[in-house]
C-alpha cells in the first residue's frame, strides 16, 4: 500500500512536471473544464446567494404563520369580477377561529394613488396599512424610534413607520422622527424608521411606509371597501390543518360560495411558499447541472484527444521509461494522474473564475452576494476528477500497453 502511495506521489510529481513544461497547451487542453466549471459555479453562486436571501426572509416570517389572500381565477377577472377579503372576514376569523393569535389585517396600495409628499418632494412608494401585530409576524424592527402600538391603531392616530429608502427619496434632512409626511393629503407623524433590508432583483425592499390599519381604512373612505390580506399565527403548529380547514369553511360561508364553486381566496403558509421556492431552485439547479454535464463531457473529450496526441508524441519517452524498469502499471498511473491533475487544475481555475464572475454579476445587478455552497465545490472537483479518470483511461492504457522495443524505435 505504501508502495502505491509512493507511486502516486511520484506520478503526481511527474504529471506536474509535464503539465507545467507545456503550460499553454495544458491550459488549452483544460479550457473546456475551466469554462464548464466556471459557468456552473457562477450560476450556482448567484442562485444560491439569492436562495439564501429568500430563505432568510421566510425564516423572518416565522414558520407557523398563515397568509390569506383573495384569489380571482383568470376567467372571472376578465369578466370584471374581483374577489375580495373584507374587514368583516378579518373580524370573523379573529373572533371565531380558535387556536390563533396576532391576526393582522393588511391593506397595500401601490402606484400613482400611493403618493407620499414632504416639502415639495414626492415619492411613489408602497403604502402598507396594518395593525401593530404586523411587527410580530413580519419581523420588521425599527432601527430608530418605535413601531406603532395597539393604541395608535385603536385611536386612528396619524403616525407612520418609514422604510429607510423613503428618507433619501423625499430628501428628508435632519432627524426624520417627529417630522410629518403627507399621504393622500393627510399628514402623518414619523415615529420610526425600519431596518434596512436591501434590494432583491432590483426591487427595493426598503421603499415603503407603514400606517395603522384603522387610519388607512379611514383614509380610503367608505367609497370602496379595500381588499385586504390577513396574516395570523397558529399557537400549536400541529393544529395547522384544522385551523386552515376552519378558516376555509368560515370564509366560504361568509362569501356565500355554492358547494361546487372554487375558493375565492388562498391560504398559504410560509413553509408552503418555501417549499415552492425550493422546488423552483431545485429544478433550476438540475437543468443547470445537465448543461454543465454536457460541457464537462465536451471538455473531457478535449482532454482525451490531447492526451492521445501526447501519448503518441511521448512514445519514445515511454519506451525509455520501460527500458529503465517502469512497469505497465507505472505508466498507466502516470498518464492517469496527469489527466486527473489536469482536470482538477481546470476545476480549480474554473472555481475561482466562476466565483469571480458570480460576485461580479450579483454586484452589477444588485442581487444578494454570491455564495458557493460546499457541495458545489466538492461536486465540481469530484466531477473534474471523474472526467479525468474516465477520459484519461484510454490514453493511459494505450501508453501502458506500448511495446518497449517498438516505443524505443519510434521516431
Amino acid at each position: 500500500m505504501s508502495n502505491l502511495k509512493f507511486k502516486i506521489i511520484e506520478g503526481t510529481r511527474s504529471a506536474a512536471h509535464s503539465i507545467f513544461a507545456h503550460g499553454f497547451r495544458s491550459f488549452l487542453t483544460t479550457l473546456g473544464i475551466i469554462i464548464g466549471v466556471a459557468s456552473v459555479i457562477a450560476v450556482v453562486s448567484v442562485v444560491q446567494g439569492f436562495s439564501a436571501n429568500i430563505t432568510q426572509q421566510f425564516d423572518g416570517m416565522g414558520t407557523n404563520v398563515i397568509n390569506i389572500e383573495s384569489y380571482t381565477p383568470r376567467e372571472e377577472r376578465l369578466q370584471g369580477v374581483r374577489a375580495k377579503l373584507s374587514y368583516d372576514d378579518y373580524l370573523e376569523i379573529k373572533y371565531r377561529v380558535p387556536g390563533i393569535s396576532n391576526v393582522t389585517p393588511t391593506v397595500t396600495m401601490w402606484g400613482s394613488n400611493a403618493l407620499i409628499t414632504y416639502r415639495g418632494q414626492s415619492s411613489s412608494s408602497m403604502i402598507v396599512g396594518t395593525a401593530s401585530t404586523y411587527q410580530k409576524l413580519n419581523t420588521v424592527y425599527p432601527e430608530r424610534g418605535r413601531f406603532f402600538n395597539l393604541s395608535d391603531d385603536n385611536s386612528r392616530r396619524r403616525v407612520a413607520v418609514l422604510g429607510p429608502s423613503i428618507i433619501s427619496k423625499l430628501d428628508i434632512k435632519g432627524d426624520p422622527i417627529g417630522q410629518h409626511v403627507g399621504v393622500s393629503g393627510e399628514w402623518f407623524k414619523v415615529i420610526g424608521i425600519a431596518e434596512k433590508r436591501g434590494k432583491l432583483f432590483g426591487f427595493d425592499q426598503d421603499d415603503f411606509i407603514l400606517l395603522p390599519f384603522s387610519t388607512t381604512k379611514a383614509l380610503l373612505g367608505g367609497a370602496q371597501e379595500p381588499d385586504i390580506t390577513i396574516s395570523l399565527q397558529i399557537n400549536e403548529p400541529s393544529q395547522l390543518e384544522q385551523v386552515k380547514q376552519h378558516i376555509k369553511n368560515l370564509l366560504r360561508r361568509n362569501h356565500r360560495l355554492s358547494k361546487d364553486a372554487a375558493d375565492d381566496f388562498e391560504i398559504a403558509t410560509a413553509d408552503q411558499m418555501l417549499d415552492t421556492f425550493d422546488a423552483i431552485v431545485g429544478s433550476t439547479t438540475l437543468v443547470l447541472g445537465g448543461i454543465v454535464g454536457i460541457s464537462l463531457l465536451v471538455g473531457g473529450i478535449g482532454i482525451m484527444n490531447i492526451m492521445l496526441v501526447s501519448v503518441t508524441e511521448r512514445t519514445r519517452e515511454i519506451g525509455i521509461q520501460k527500458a529503465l524498469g517502469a512497469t505497465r502499471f507505472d505508466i498507466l498511473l502516470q498518464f492517469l494522474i496527469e489527466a486527473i491533475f489536469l482536470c482538477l487544475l481546470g476545476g480549480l481555475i474554473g472555481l475561482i473564475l466562476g466565483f469571480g464572475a458570480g460576485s461580479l454579476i450579483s454586484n452589477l445587478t444588485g442581487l444578494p452576494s454570491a455564495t458557493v455552497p460546499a457541495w458545489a465545490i466538492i461536486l465540481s472537483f469530484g466531477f473534474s476528477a471523474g472526467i479525468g479518470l474516465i477520459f484519461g483511461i484510454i490514453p493511459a492504457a494505450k501508453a501502458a500497453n506500448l511495446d518497449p522495443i517498438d516505443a524505443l524505435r519510434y521516431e
Partner: protein
Amino acid sequence: MSKQTIIELRNIAKHYMMGSEGFYALEGIDLDIYLNDYIAIVGSSGSGKSTLMNLLGCLDYPTAGEYKLKGTDVATLNETALAGIRNREIGFIFQNFNLLPRATALQNVMQPLIYRGIAVAERRRRAQNALEMVSLQDRMAHVPNQLSGGQRQRVAIARALVTEPAILLADEPTGNLDSSTTTEIMALFDKLHGDGQTLIVVTHEHEIAERCHRVITLKDGHLMSDHINQVSAKLSSSEVVAYV
C-alpha cells in the same frame, strides 16, 4: 581462476512473423557471460545483434530456449517481473542516448531509481555520485539540449550505472559520436571494466570491438565465433588465461 556466470543462454531462438512468413532472427544461440566480462557483439546489419541485445536486456521474450540471468529463468517471468529485472540488473546505453528531453541531467539519472521506490533525497544523492563518476558534476542542471553528444552519452552511462546493474548493455554507444568523443567514451568503458563492471557492447565498428576483451560474431541469426581478443585483453589484465 573461477568465473562467476551471470548469464546463461541455452539454445535460444527468436522467430518473427513478417506477414504470413516466419523469420528466424536468432537460432540456436548458446552463450555464457561471466562476471567482469567485456564483450563486443559484432555482425552486419540483419545478423541478429539487436534481437540478441533486446533479449539480453529483457525487453523481449525468446521464442524458444532458456535464458538464466543470475540463476533466474527470465523467459518464464511476466511483464511486471521483467520490468523489475530491467530496473535492477540491466543498464542500457543507446546509440541515440535516449535521455528524457525535458528532464535535467540529474533528473534523467534519478529516473530509474523511481521505479525502485527510492525516496527523492536518496535518489538525488545516488544520482549525484553517478554523475561525478562520469565527471559531469557541473552539468547536473542542464537539459539534454544544452549538452554535447559526448556529455549526453555520459549522462546515459551515469543513468545506467546508478542502479548498480549486473550488466551494462551498450547498443552502438559511439554511433552518433565523433572520433575524439568515441575515444573518451571507450576510455570510460575501460575504466568501468577495470572497476569490475560487466559490459556488453553491440557495435559494427572494428575499432570498438578491438578494445573489448571478448568478441562474439553473429551472422544470419547464428553465433559464428566467440573468441578472446588477445591484444586488448593483454593490455589491461591477465584474464586471458581464463579463456584459453
